[in-house]
């Protein structure tokens, strides 16, 4: 048992450039019940995540883009085991982790950490910065008081905070500073994969770039891999190596960042890119397609209701991913057919 854990942790030293997936997610599903009726029996299931596949290469950044409520955060929480998945497999460094019991997972838990969107609720208001970070430092196995303190100050310096803030409470900081503390806490257990759930969308514009640079620097220095969840296409296009576009619980397009932004295939990706206002010109707005209200047949493409290019094939059955380029996949038969 122990030897196996050691082996995985040795193997797991990430080597940037080498395209080993550090995280592999296959057919992940999660539904939430909506309770109704006399005895509160489950009547309806909302499919929050409906068969998601992801691959994150070691040392790389995978972007996960989509509108609010499309299931992005649910995916992250399932990878972190804050939520239990209904089905599907999650492999971390080649090892299936969602079947492990909490005890078996414990040694691996440190390897995956999360950075949260809301810098106000992600720090315990009754704990000083040092206390918050110390919890991780202790778990990372640093015992002595002095060593702990040194490590805390080292971590704070690493995220660009003066060590003197260690004994301050979160309410004294600005959003950007809190986000740095949150990053330091995540780093305290020396993780290899960090799930960033909209880490900059609650921050001031002038602070966003600081945090983005910090994340980049940390990736270079520590060889971290990121899952970067965001709705901001500009940020994603800047920071991510690969991007998955998510719509209503499904990945509709997955591609390297360049391919996705230069040659988007899925109609929804098109719409997203067209909607994002660009800095330099008054954007040409595509005429909005009014949503059709007819109910979808089960298994149909979830985007069919708003899709300008919908044809009858879209309603037929579950749409599969089609490859349209190197590492470029799209879940839309009509779009895939138009392959140049």
């Amino acid at each position, binding site marked *: 048992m122990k030897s196996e854990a050691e082996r995985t942790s040795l193997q797991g030293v990430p080597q940037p450039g080498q395209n080993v997936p550090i995280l592999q997610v296959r057919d992940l599903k999660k539904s939430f019940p909506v309770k109704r009726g006399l005895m509160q029996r489950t009547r309806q299931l909302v499919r929050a995540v409906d068969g998601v596949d992801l691959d994150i290469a070691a040392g790389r950044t995978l972007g996960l883009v989509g509108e609010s409520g499309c299931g992005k955060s649910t995916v992250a929480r399932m990878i972190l085991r804050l939520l239990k998945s209904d089905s599907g497999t999650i492999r971390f460094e080649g090892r299936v982790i969602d079947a492990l019991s909490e005890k078996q997972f414990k040694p691996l838990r440190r390897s995956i950490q999360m950075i949260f969107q809301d810098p106000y609720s992600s*720090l315990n208001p009754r704990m000083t910065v040092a206390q918050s970070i110390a919890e991780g430092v202790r778990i990372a196995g640093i015992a002595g008081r002095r060593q702990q303190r040194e490590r805390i100050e080292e971590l704070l310096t690493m995220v660009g905070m003066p060590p003197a803030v260690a004994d301050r409470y979160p309410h004294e900081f600005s959003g950007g500073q809190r986000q740095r503390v949150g990053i330091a806490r995540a780093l305290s257990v020396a993780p290899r994969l960090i799930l960033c759930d909209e880490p900059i969308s609650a921050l001031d514009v002038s602070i966003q770039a600081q945090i983005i640079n910090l994340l980049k620097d940390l990736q270079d220095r520590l060889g971290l891999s990121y899952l970067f969840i965001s709705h901001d296409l500009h940020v994603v296009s800047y920071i991510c190596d690969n991007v998955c576009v998510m719509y209503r619980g499904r990945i509709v397009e997955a591609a390297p960042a360049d391919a996705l932004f230069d040659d988007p295939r899925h109609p929804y990706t098109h719409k997203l890119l067209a909607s994002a206002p660009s800095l330099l010109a008054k954007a040409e707005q595509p005429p909005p397609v009014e949503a059709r209200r007819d109910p979808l047949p089960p298994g149909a493409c979830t985007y069919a209701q708003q899709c300008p290019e919908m044809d009858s094939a879209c309603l037929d059955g579950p749409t599969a991913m089609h490859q349209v380029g190197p590492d470029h996949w799209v879940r839309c038969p009509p779009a895939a057919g138009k392959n140049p």
Partner: protein
Amino acid sequence: MTADTRNSALDAATGLPPARTPWEETWRLLRKNRLAFSGLLIFVIFFLVAVAGILLTAGSRPVLDPAQVRLQEKLLPPLSLPNHEVLPPEALPPLGRYLLGTDDLGRDVFARMLQGAWVSLTVGFVAVGIAVIIGIILGGLAGYYGDQELEVGHLLVWTTGVIAAFLLLTNRPAGAAAAAAASAVIWIVMRRERSLYEGPPSRRRWFTRGLVSVDTLIMRAVDVMLCFPSFFLILTVVALLPASLYNIMVVIGLTSWMGTTRFVRAEFLSLREQDFVAAARALGIGDMRIIFRHIMPNAMAPVLVSATLGIATAILTEAGLSFLGFGVPPPHATWGNILSDGKQFIFDAPWLTFAPGIVILIVVLAFNLFGEGLRDIMNPKLRERN
């Protein structure tokens, strides 16, 4: 120290305003809230008086004897001098005067009030302490473990356990041992079942089927308790039990935990979803540490507020019970029974009514003001603004 000079200096090392812990912040806001601060002040004075009272009036030869009967000196108004000729020297009031007069038995009302202060203080604190402890435990369970389903087996283990305890208490050790054994057997079977097969709930065997969630169970218990009119219930139970201070405190405590339970649960439910709890779980911190280190301290503010207001209510309830004759048994003095005894002489000796009445009013008012002030101070919206 003016706010301006303090605020304008930013800390050199951090570039932040000077450090302020949450406690300092609370204290600062409390100082600014004049009503709440005077409430706190009165409470401190009341506490000191009550402690002094128990020291001065207890023991076999107390300095101020609340039970000293002086039939010649009955119903004297406040500040009257004792009649040195008719009293034996040991019955003279040690302060030289009857500060608050005497009652119909010539007892020193001031001494009796002092003795009563301790009663009010302990009733308030112990009763609320009991209620708050029950409330935190049940509310915390319902809020944190609320989703967990209690299984048929759990209930069997508990029921047999309770039967065992009951049999043991009624001196039937053989039956108790049998019940305890049954309880243990069921528990072991359940554990084995669980480790052998972890599957969807519907395919489990009947005794590991979910029956009712922890949350439902606790909240139904709260509903049941809320169906009793509280004063009537307290009155009934106190009347049935032998009269004693101890019983009154326990009964008031056991019948007033529902409010605390409800909002501790609400606090836990909302805190459980906060990102910092998710972060703690991601770090692999255990449930107990999350509950006690992360959630509990953040849930304490409203508990503190309701505890303070609860003390006020408990003091009033005890006074009401004493007034109706169900309180602490005589000759022990409480503010309620001084007032109750004095009501027959309301026109001849109004101080017997007014002294305890006004003191109760002031003390209860202090707790209410302090509690409401705390509520304002703890209000996060208000804190952000300052």
